[in-house]
């Protein structure tokens, strides 16, 4: 009697134990290398850290570091606002661009494998230190200036800008779009993974749906919005979060540069952690609010 009741429980318990065995590397790693630094960093941001010969001492001093970040430090607030603005604009542009490219790369045409290979090249080219180096490439812009001066042709985007201004369209929104069009290269090289994710989503949309829609008289444009878009809408959420996280871990991020300089060069661990936590908090709020909004619009087929 007792044995019989215990038997299913026993299997469940065995499975639970096996589950814990499988995730044990993560648990150990998380407890050893994440939990302590996580809380220590939080604690540090509220205290004054002094580094001595045998170790370091921390003394709580309330919000001093945070107040310093916002009121005393001249750069931080400005950099923070700038980076958040740049992040929002870039993330939106990356989403549109990568969805569009994924749609094209999902079609059948000659040389598709080659084009795909080129589009995913940025996954290599825009990672880690290479991106940071790419950005201050003064020589390239120098060469560009020389070409412009020597050929005396006006820059295309300048001309378009002038025309827009002449029509009185150059308000803030158009200006923003204009900046994005100018930075199409940055957008293209930071959307490699997003394209892969969208592409993998597009493959899961059953062909039969399109056929049925076409028979019912649906145009390609309509089936894009009525079928493709809802079917991959969950991936918008994934990509959105991924892009934001990716953006603020990039090595050309001004706020992160400042934090690292404060920590490694000036050895002000307390102040650096406070700034890092402010930035982290801001990004978490952005991710939370925006994914809440997006997840309302996401459609789950199953």
């Amino acid at each position, binding site marked *: 009697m007792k044995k019989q009741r215990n038997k299913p429980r026993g299997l469940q318990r065995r499975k639970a134990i096996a589950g814990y065995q499988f995730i044990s590397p993560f648990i150990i790693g*998380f407890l050893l*290398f994440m939990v*302590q630094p996580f809380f220590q960093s939080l604690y540090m941001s509220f205290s004054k850290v002094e580094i001595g010969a045998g170790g370091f001492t921390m003394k709580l001093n309330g919000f001093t570091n945070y107040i310093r970040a916002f009121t005393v430090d001249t750069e931080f607030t400005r950099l923070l606002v700038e980076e958040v603005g740049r992040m929002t604009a870039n993330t939106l542009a990356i989403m549109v661009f990568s969805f569009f490219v994924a749609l094209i790369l999902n079609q059948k045409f000659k040389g598709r494998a080659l084009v795909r290979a080129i589009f995913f090249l940025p996954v290599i080219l825009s990672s880690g230190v290479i991106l940071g180096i790419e950005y201050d*490439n003064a020589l390239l812009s120098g060469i560009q200036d020389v070409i412009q001066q020597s050929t005396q042709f006006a820059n295309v985007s300048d001309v378009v800008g002038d025309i827009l201004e002449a029509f009185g369209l150059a308000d803030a929104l158009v200006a923003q779009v204009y900046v994005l069009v100018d930075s199409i290269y940055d957008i293209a090289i930071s959307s490699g993974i997003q394209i892969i994710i969208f592409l993998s989503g597009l493959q899961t949309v059953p062909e039969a749906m399109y056929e049925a829609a076409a028979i019912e008289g649906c145009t390609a444009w309509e089936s894009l919005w009525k079928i493709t878009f809802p079917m991959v809408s969950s991936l918008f959420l994934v990509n959105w979060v991924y892009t934001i996280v990716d953006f603020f871990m990039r090595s050309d991020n001004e706020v992160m540069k400042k934090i690292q300089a404060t920590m490694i060069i000036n050895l002000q661990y307390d102040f650096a952690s406070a700034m890092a936590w402010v930035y982290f908090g801001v990004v978490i709020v952005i991710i939370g609010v925006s994914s809440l909004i997006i997840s309302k619009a996401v459609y789950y087929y199953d």
Partner: protein
Amino acid sequence: MINTTTKNKMDYWERNKSSGGYLLKKTVGSISYRIIRAILLFGMCFMIIQPILNKISISFMAEEDLYNAMVISIPEHFTAGNYNLAVMFMDYWKTLGNTLLISATIALLQIAACTLVGYGFARFEFPLKKLWFACVILIIVIPPQTISTALHLHFRFFDMFGIAELITGSTINLSGSVLPYYLMSAGCMGLKNGLYIYMIRQLFRTIPNEIEEAAYVDGCGTFKTFYRIMLINATPILTSCYLFAFVWQWTDGFYSKMFLGNIKLLSIQLQQISEKLSSYMINTLHLAGGATIGYTQCIIATGTLMVIVPLLILYLFAQKGFVESLSSTGIKM
């Protein structure tokens, strides 16, 4: 039969007429769409490759070519001197060996650990599963920079629950040694490891339950089922995860600088190349002004090329692993 096919071929205009011009409109539309698409794709591909081509041409230029407005892409004074300098500054061959070894082993360790964890999350029910998975999401979202301060001190004065201090009387300085990073990788706390766990979990969730159950019925234990049945099914995606881990580790500057500072790695050497150039100019060639901006950029371009060329070669051979296996299986996120 023959009659109908010839009829179809011959009478395009007739068919067009009978459809009221619809056929012609459709053909023109699809052809122009294809042309526009081809132009667009060509433009974007060119935009992506152009910086590499540019770097290649710059890396072969002698210094005077850089300032010559007539020279744009084909160098007038062809030279391999930039490469010699870059090899010297980066201690290239030794650094390359180090980087290969570290990237390969770290990526292997990370993917092995993440596979186990991802499998655990995908296939087993256990108490507090949601909480642990929330922790995985947390490590995806927390930028390492936020906790880097504390992590730095954590390893500078490393101590496991005060044991080391009891025995030796002081804490162990692990900053600058390789060990902590290997430990972190084994504990899934390395670069982007949360992402790998997430991806691998999604993958294992797509494998049908019946395969697993059949293995259990035939007497496989959980671990045997894992490596005899599930792992084989997952190989393509695990390969591409491994490739990503390898490449990202190769170019990573953050963890390398923090934990592997004493070992010469390409990413770190590349960041220091301009300082080395100017000190070489001043100390060895006795040029008081150091290197000019243009020449520094030229050497940086050469160095960058040398860092990414091994990756490009890898990409050429393993292109399918990078792209096709991930995109064609259609992982549901």
